[in-house]
């Protein structure tokens, strides 16, 4: 029935109909793209917020790691484990060849 009406109408009607369908399709496409764009922007916003939260966490962890590495914190713990600094008499200076420099340093060349 539609075909027969289309056949009865002139070519201008068919062109108009095609244009109308094209406009409707383009409008639909445009609406879809705009909606999708907005949705992606919200997604992006969430990701950016996530990234921001993670970078804040990294900052916080860096501070924590630095505080944990502080000698003032480590030394008392090392002492409780029985560790201590070497006494001056336990320190021996070595030359590049691995031999002690102490004799040279003490003014008694070997």
């Amino acid at each position, binding site marked *: 029935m539609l075909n027969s009406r289309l056949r009865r109408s002139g070519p201008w009607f068919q062109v108009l109909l095609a244009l109308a369908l094209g406009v409707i399709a383009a409008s639909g496409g445009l609406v879809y793209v705009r909606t999708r764009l907005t949705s992606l*922007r919200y997604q992006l916003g969430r990701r950016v917020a996530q990234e921001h939260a993670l970078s804040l966490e990294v900052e916080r962890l*860096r501070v924590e790691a630095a505080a944990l*590495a502080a000698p003032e914190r480590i030394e008392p713990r090392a002492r409780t484990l029985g560790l201590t600094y070497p006494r001056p*008499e*336990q*320190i021996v*200076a*070595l*030359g590049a060849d691995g031999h002690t420099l102490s004799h040279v340093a003490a*003014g008694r060349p070997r």
Partner: protein
Amino acid sequence: MSGARRARRRRAGLRPGRIDAIAVVALLGFAALFARAIQLQTLDAEWLSDRAGRQASTVVELEALRADLQDRRGSMLAVSATVDSVAAWPKRVADARGAARALAGPLGVPARELEKRLARGSGFVWLQRWVSPDAATRVTHLGLDGVQLIPERRRFYPNGDLAGPLIGFADRDGRGLSGVELAYDRELRGASAEVSARRDAHGNMLPTVASAPAARTGRAVRLAIDVRLQHFAESALAESLRKTGARHATLVALDPTTGEILALAEAPGFDPNRFWLEDKSLYRARAFVDGFEPGSTMKPFSVALALDAGVVRPEDVFDCENGSYRIGRRVIRDFHPHQLLTVSDIVRVSSNIGAAKISERLGARRLVDGMRRFGFGDVPGSGFPGEIAGSLRDLRERQAVERANLSFGQGVTVTPVQLTAAMATFANGGRRVTPRLLAVTRSEGEDPPEPGARVISEQTSRAVLAMLRAVVESGTGTQAALPNVAVAGKTGTAQKVKDGTYSEKDYIASFVGIAPVVNPRFVIGVFVDEPQGLHTGGVVAAPVFREVAAYALDQLGGSEREPSERVDAPRVETRLVHGAGDEG
């Protein structure tokens, strides 16, 4: 119009006149809409588009994160992070008393104090700045109207009061206010950036798809200090203060080749994390900004200049007048009386009379000029804010008393950094050393730093170094000696000037030493202000040098520091040992 249609309309009660009127009104309405559409779409289009753009878009300023401050091995000395602060808009807080009670626990502030702040009625009040993540979570869970968390940048100093006066601090707005934080503020701060963003109808921020310029974080600054040595030095100074009852103590440790400041300790110090609560007088890094009369630690410089000028030789003998020697109206005395002393012995036993007699041969002008070449009376050039030059007056030849005073460190003021850097000249073959705050980093193939200007000959430098070694082995500085490593140094016990005269009870005890004598790695100056009881440099300052020099040789003396540059430098075989150390 056909008669049948007219008849239908007549039956429906519509008269032709009314239809025409409706048609005209509709037409006019459409015409008006059409005209408005044309106006909006063409005539006002640009203006409206601009206005819509302004309403929907906004500019966000991204604040740059202040960069890290590190020690020479990359350990963090100062690091920035974002933390929450709690703010309130009092007019929007319905129940101020209830809100204050609820917030008191998480914020650790008395409810009454919070209520007082909320009652001020101004537009915006801080309730607590820089709260912990836990406190921030608890405040969020309270869900109070008119109370909000606001993210802010905060500077953390993870080592607490370690090197506080050297590092200094940055304020709440991230601006360096003192110390290294101020000296390198421009590098650390970086640059903030402005980013365009769009808002939706609810005011939510939508990120722009186009890449936005990021805020440029500042450049990390790597200091020359080593946190381990710094910590040890501060502990040793604190122990010295406890033992001697002194007011203050300073320690400076330098690399004599590069001038790098490996440790700069002040006791007592302060914690930059809470600088606003600390005594402001503790902010000062006295090593750079306080001058003092050095006393006998200046004698090696007088002697070095005389040796270099060829007016004395190490073995020349001087009559030290049995401890009392008059120059004009001034009588110079020695702590212990001596008769005949060689130049070497004058340094070893620290004779004021001997130093004065040596300076007679040198002359005032050559003495002053030489002292200037060593860097006295001149800003050392480390770049530390407020660093002073000390004072060194020009003398005429006839000013014999002033010349004598200068030869043993009176009538001249120096800073601890200046004196330690000058002593490094003897460890550096007679070349001047500029103290450096920053670590010297050398890329492969890059030339080493330019050597400093020559102050004295290498031969003179060696001769003075031998004399300084004798000071430690059998002179006034025996308590600085290390059993297995030869060290050199000079003691100083300077009377403080109070009310224009030299005090009989207030002294600055000092020891500036070099370790080891062969291939020197460290020059360490220890300065103790107003020790009580025993107050000589040899008793008060030399033991601190000994402890710190031993630690420095142990921890930093090896190849770890600069393997390519220090092939024949002494390495040390011990590390932290288990137990109290029962090996000999």
